[in-house]
């Protein structure tokens, strides 16, 4: 599994690059590279469904993000005088990783999942649902209710975007404009 480590390190470097890049466009492009690495990792980990979805979703979100950055010359602001949040970020990361390191021995060893419920899907998924793709049988039959929720999240987001981009939010009131943002 050397390639896995290789890909992960690549992703970490890519994301650091994405965050430190001087202009926004290259930051977004670096994010695209990270997404591609993730997609390959999914393939290596034998998750082709996820890899396909990740790939197309990545393309779409990159397109959306580029629409946001292409606008004009967007000079990256220097991050001076912004020490406190950085320190907070580093502190948070260190604490999280320390606790995580302590808890890893409790997790099952990598490559040997417990498979309690999943064993049932593997054994009788084909007979019960008739779908050869077990992932499809899980998302659309065993856990179809989740998928309804997922579709609804997407609908909600679309409605939300449409609501947010309305040019006029309030009707012009007949009394003086409110000035409350004190």
């Amino acid at each position, binding site marked *: *599994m050397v390639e*896995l*480590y290789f890909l*992960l390190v690549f*992703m*970490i470097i890519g*994301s650091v690059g*994405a*965050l430190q890049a001087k202009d*926004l466009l290259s930051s*977004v492009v670096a*994010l695209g590279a990270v997404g591609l690495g*993730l997609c390959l990792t*999914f393939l290596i*980990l*034998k*998750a*082709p469904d*996820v890899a396909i979805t*990740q790939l197309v*979703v990545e393309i779409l*979100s990159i397109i*959306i993000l580029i*629409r*946001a950055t292409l*606008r004009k010359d967007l000079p990256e*602001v220097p*991050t001076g005088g*912004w020490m406190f*949040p950085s320190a*907070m*970020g580093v502190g*948070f*990361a260190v604490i*999280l*990783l320390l606790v995580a390191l302590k808890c890893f021995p409790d997790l099952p060893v*990598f*490559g*040997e*999942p417990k498979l309690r419920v999943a064993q049932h*899907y*593997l*054994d009788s998924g*084909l007979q019960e649902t008739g779908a*050869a*793709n*077990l*992932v499809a049988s899980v*998302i659309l039959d065993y*856990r179809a209710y*989740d*998928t309804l*929720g*997922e579709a609804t999240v*997407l609908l909600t*987001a679309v409605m939300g*975007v449409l609501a*947010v981009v309305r040019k006029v939010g309030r009707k012009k009131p007949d009394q003086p404009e409110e000035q409350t*943002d*004190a």
Partner: protein
Amino acid sequence: MIYLLCLVLFCVGIYGLLSKRNIIKMIVGLIIAEHAVNLFFILVAYRRNGRAPILAPDVAITQMVDPLPQALVLTAIVIGLATTALLVALAIRIYGKYGTYDIAKIRELRG
């Protein structure tokens, strides 16, 4: 430990979110953290020398990876996309109103 590297990726995302003051950079950090969580889920599902959970008429079922987390990650990816779309829409609107992506300047501009 592969898990640790994955969490490092998560921390990089969160760190970016906390320390950057550009709205787009914050969104980028958030997306990276999302990637890390999804990856962690798939890592947990992996079986050594496993096969993809797709059956074929002539192959017996042996050593398949856990299909359940894959299904969940599919859901999580779409949720992430939905959130990203909304965030970007908000960001573009903020840019339209304030003329900058810099969150510190936006705070100064406020009322």
